């Protein structure tokens, strides 16, 4: 732990903070008592299914819904034009913080033209999903196919069709950042390495798909939506505004959520359509995306081509880096978070661990006739880290310097913060050097090098990979959303209350999707208040109950919501001690709370229980003097001040074996050393890192949404889109360096995406290390057996 950090309540012996506790929700889930959106079945619920464009790009000439309307059980058939009449207007997926960005207005369902395969065209609502699907098959849509734009490389070429003629070209956004003098650095460098990297499209594949149940009561004019969401308040704002329902009349509840990974911070046209149907019919309407729909309509991500260059001195000092990113978006920019965040983030973080001062990074994000893209776990980081860390490895090899040593010479020094990175972003409280030395130790780096050499002699090709990283977590209000104009909160709040029984209710704006956010908030509250965990109930995911907040995304829940909870608990604690002081005729600062009882500091004998304070504070207030008007509740709202993000850092190691005859990669071992500041629950933090790694490894080795030249998605099933499974995954050893962030008293930074961000980079470096003696090199992901065999010149 950072020596300068003062000890707080949280550092007490036996504190719940820093302790592994199992998730409350896990017990329910394994008992089969999870309650997901689809488990909620109000009487008279109807089910929505969609007719979706079978073409990548087509004009809609006519729609005939008569036969579908006649089907048994059908309550409503609605076209895009009919839906548009119920909406306040189309979405435009731009943010003002992305200068010059443009996007075509997008209706929730296509009206005259469908621009990607899977875009909803007609909604059918019936008494069961099966009946809705039966009727959907009877809808006749006449299309005229239009030329598609599929290849991002040629999307801006003259002669390539323009998807949205109003925009003038297929360019969504372009940007360049430049610091120092890259050309001078390159001209003066001893060694310059250039390479091009490509990354396939991925999608999030949450176990629970997108799910929504909308209910509208015409009597109260209240709209209630249960939905599998990370951001209930954002959903409230967007749905209210799109459908013209006053925001305060809209209640969003996110019940149990079965994974999200960024997928569930977006808004989708089919969900608006189902909600509109509920309003129109005044009956509950449910829409649960099936797996085919998930592949064909959930946001995609990661499709990028990056040209990168690094300049170094022969002593192995990096003098500059520059990258050019061509990013393939979908047919529209996703509303409300846009489809350009990923490219922007690649520019922000590539080469981020290193101290060089010359950097140029540019991007062009282009529209394609594919599913819209947007944020997916560790937005942009897998790409930026892969490019940066591969270039670093190649430079180290060219200098003849061990890649660990090369990084040792170039990472920002632990005593050099705060500082500004080459990308122009403030960095503070990082620990690259400490992480690197810890990794050397944990990997047994020198012994591993020897072992690798021994295996080489036997004809077994093993590779060792290293990848240092930074990760932007917990974005602040100066950044993108609020400032960019989207109705997304970058602060988060906690309201905490002492109940008459002495129990505590803790209501938070951040949400849980299975990672244990609620447990972590409970630990912070219990530790701060000095009460047993069992005395705390955390409520999240209900806009009628919790204070306004952004929800969970960008590794922000603990960093932002955790500080709000800590501060709110501190305020409530002060009230409790003040009341106790009055009742006990003691100075509040001589008192402490231990295990639900007020005690004298340093003593454990109960002087008054919290239950007694609750009883008096709520029922026997006459026992308190008139000037004590405490509410026994507190609300605290936390936001970053000027910082763009709370950056974290770390380093990963990988050990792999490559079968050079088959191109198969075996993952042998994986290490992650990362610095998320204060660790609240070690096991949950570790599992975030492990799960994140596995998601990164999936992208590096298996996953890709494959489109053919007509814009048809080729692999919209789990048999064809391969996600990683436990059998192929390595052991992942995790260690945390805890440099508390200075922006909060809690000191926690984000941890949820650190595994994902660098896992593809480290495994690619390891594979390239394994095949280097054969002159092979892979720069494309996923690294399929064929990619490896081609790199080795075997096919």
């Amino acid at each position, binding site marked *: 732990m950072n020596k300068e950090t003062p000890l707080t309540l949280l550092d007490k012996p036996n504190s719940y903070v820093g302790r592994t506790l199992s998730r409350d929700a896990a017990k329910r889930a394994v008992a089969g008592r999870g309650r997901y959106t689809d488990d909620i079945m109000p009487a008279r619920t109807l089910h929505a299914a969609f007719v979706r464009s079978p073409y990548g790009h087509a004009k809609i000439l006519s729609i005939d819904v008569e036969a579908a309307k006649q089907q048994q059980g059908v309550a409503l058939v609605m076209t895009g034009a009919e839906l548009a009449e119920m909406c306040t207007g189309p979405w435009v997926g731009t943010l003002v913080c992305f200068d010059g960005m443009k996007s075509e207005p997008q209706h929730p369902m296509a009206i005259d033209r469908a621009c990607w395969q899977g875009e909803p065209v007609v909604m059918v609502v019936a008494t*069961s*999903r*099966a009946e809705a*699907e*039966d009727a959907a*098959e009877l809808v006749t849509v006449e299309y005229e196919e239009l030329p598609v734009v599929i290849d991002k490389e040629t999307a801006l070429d003259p002669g390539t069709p323009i998807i949205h003629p109003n925009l003038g070209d297929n360019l969504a956004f372009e940007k360049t950042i430049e610091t120092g003098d890259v050309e001078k650095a390159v001209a003066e460098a001893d060694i310059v390495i250039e390479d091009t990297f490509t990354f396939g499209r991925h999608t999030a594949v949450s176990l629970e798909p997108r799910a929504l149940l909308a209910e509208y009561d015409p009597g109260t004019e209240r709209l209630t939506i249960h939905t599998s969401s990370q951001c209930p308040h954002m959903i409230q704002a967007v749905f209210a505004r799109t459908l013209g329902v006053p925001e305060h009349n809209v209640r969003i509840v996110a019940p149990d959520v079965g994974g999200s990974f960024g997928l569930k911070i977006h808004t989708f046209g089919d969900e608006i359509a189902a909600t509109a149907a509920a309003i129109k019919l005044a009956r509950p309407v449910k829409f649960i995306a*099936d*797996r*085919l729909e998930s592949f064909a309509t959930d946001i995609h991500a990661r499709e990028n081509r990056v040209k990168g260059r690094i300049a170094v001195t022969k002593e192995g000092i990096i003098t500059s880096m520059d990258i050019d990113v061509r990013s393939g978006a979908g047919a529209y920019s996703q509303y409300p978070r846009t489809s350009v965040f990923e490219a922007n983030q690649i520019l922000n973080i590539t080469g981020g661990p290193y101290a060089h001062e010359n950097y140029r990074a540019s991007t062009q994000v282009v529209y394609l006739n594919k599913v819209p893209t947007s944020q997916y776990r560790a937005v942009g980081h897998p790409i930026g880290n892969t490019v940066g860390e591969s270039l670093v490895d190649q430079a180290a090899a060219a200098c003849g310097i061990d890649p660990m040593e090369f990084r040792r010479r170039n990472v920002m020094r632990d005593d050099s913060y705060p500082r500004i990175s080459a990308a122009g972003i403030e960095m503070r409280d990082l620990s690259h050097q400490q992480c690197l030395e810890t990794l050397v130790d944990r990997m047994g780096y020198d012994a591993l090098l020897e072992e690798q050499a021994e295996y080489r002699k036997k004809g077994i090709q093993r590779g060792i990979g290293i990848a240092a990283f930074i990760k932007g977590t917990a974005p602040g209000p100066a950044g993108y959303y609020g400032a960019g104009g989207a109705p997304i909160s970058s602060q988060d709040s906690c309201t905490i209350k002492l109940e008459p029984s002495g129990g505590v209710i803790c209501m938070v704006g951040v949400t849980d999707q299975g990672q244990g956010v609620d447990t972590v908030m409970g630990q912070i509250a219990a530790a701060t208040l000095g009460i047993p965990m069992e005395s705390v109930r955390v409520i999240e995911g209900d806009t009628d109950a919790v204070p306004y907040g952004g929800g969970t995304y960008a590794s922000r829940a603990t960093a932002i919501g955790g500080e709000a909870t800590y501060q709110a608990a501190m305020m409530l604690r002060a009230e409790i001690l003040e009341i106790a002081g009055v009742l006990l005729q003691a100075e509040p600062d001589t008192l402490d709370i231990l295990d639900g009882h007020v005690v004298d500091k340093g003593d454990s004998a109960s002087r008054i229980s919290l239950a007694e304070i609750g009883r008096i504070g709520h029922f026997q207030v006459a026992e308190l003097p008139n000037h004590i008007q405490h509410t026994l509740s507190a609300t605290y709202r936390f936001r970053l001040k000027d910082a763009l993000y709370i950056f974290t850092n770390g380093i990963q190691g990988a050990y792999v074996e490559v079968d050079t*005859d*088959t*191109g*198969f990669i075996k993952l042998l071992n994986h290490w992650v050393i990362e610095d998320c500041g204060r660790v609240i629950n070690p096991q949950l933090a570790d599992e975030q890192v492990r799960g994140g790694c596995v998601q990164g490894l999936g992208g590096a*080795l*298996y996953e890709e949404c*494959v489109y053919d030249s007509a814009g048809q998605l*080729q*692999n919209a*099933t789990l*048999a*064809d889109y*391969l996600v*990683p*499974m436990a*059998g*192929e995954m390595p052991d992942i050893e995790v260690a945390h360096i805890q440099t508390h962030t200075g922006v909060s008293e809690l000191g926690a930074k984000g941890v949820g995406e650190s595994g994902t961000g660098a896992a593809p980079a480290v495994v690619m470096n390891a594979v390239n290390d394994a095949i280097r003696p054969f002159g092979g090199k892979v720069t494309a992901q996923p690294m*399929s*057996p*064929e990619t490896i*065999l081609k790199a080795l010149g*075997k*096919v």
Partner: protein
Amino acid sequence: MKAPKFNYIRAESRQQALELLDQLGEDGRILAGGQSLMPTLNMRLSQPGTLIDINKVTDLSGITLEDGIVRIGAMTRHVEVANSPIIAENLPLIAEAMQHVAHHAVRNRGTIGGSIALADPAAEMPACVLALGATLVVESINGRREIAAEDYFKGLYETARAANELLVEILIPAEKSDNVSVFLELAQRHGDFAMAGLACVARVSNKTFEELRLVYFGSEDRPTLGAGAIAAVVGQTWSAECKEAAANALADDLDPMTNLQGSAAMKLHLQKVLTGRALDAAIERAEAV
């Protein structure tokens, strides 16, 4: 992903199943373990009028050994085949191959008959029955018909079984005690359908292949005998040259399909690699006996 409407009849006897198959023709579809059929229904890739459930027809399942022939009922679940001592002792090739068939949950329901009736080009059991020279027994109301595995697999999901015929059992000669067998497959994740695979049965003496069958799957539209590769090896003392000759001959034996898993060229390459490895393993296993 909800199945369209269909009728469902649970056959109480083999005879009833045969009668239903005959009456319904193309419109009837046998439901065995459902592990392949149900997904195609839910994805609306097939829309049969009636499912004929044979799960309650008890005389369609079971494994017995009689006069050197292993008899496996069509409704025998993968898990039963995998755990059977008769299979382990007499058909080690199948025992080895079973480890590659799907995952536990699928093996608990899926059947060997379903696998062979479906004839997925990347499935393990079709390759094994061809390698082992099995006989596939089908039955209709008109009687029983035995089809040699060589004549059974006709193309991509195509077999010699007529629409009104039920696959009832598989007859496989027990592997001879002086035989060795090797089963190899490449799939990116354990339990997935194979990218390339090979079932090898051989009699080896003195590092020489006296008899050999090599059946390739995953890369072809059906399990395919590598006649050229076999010819290049049989009678030869195993050597590096021999290995290369077998690999070279494969180019004429196989005609791999390009799909999402990879190009035809890659699959041919993988089958060559597997050939060398399988034959190496066969020699090793023969020497270990």
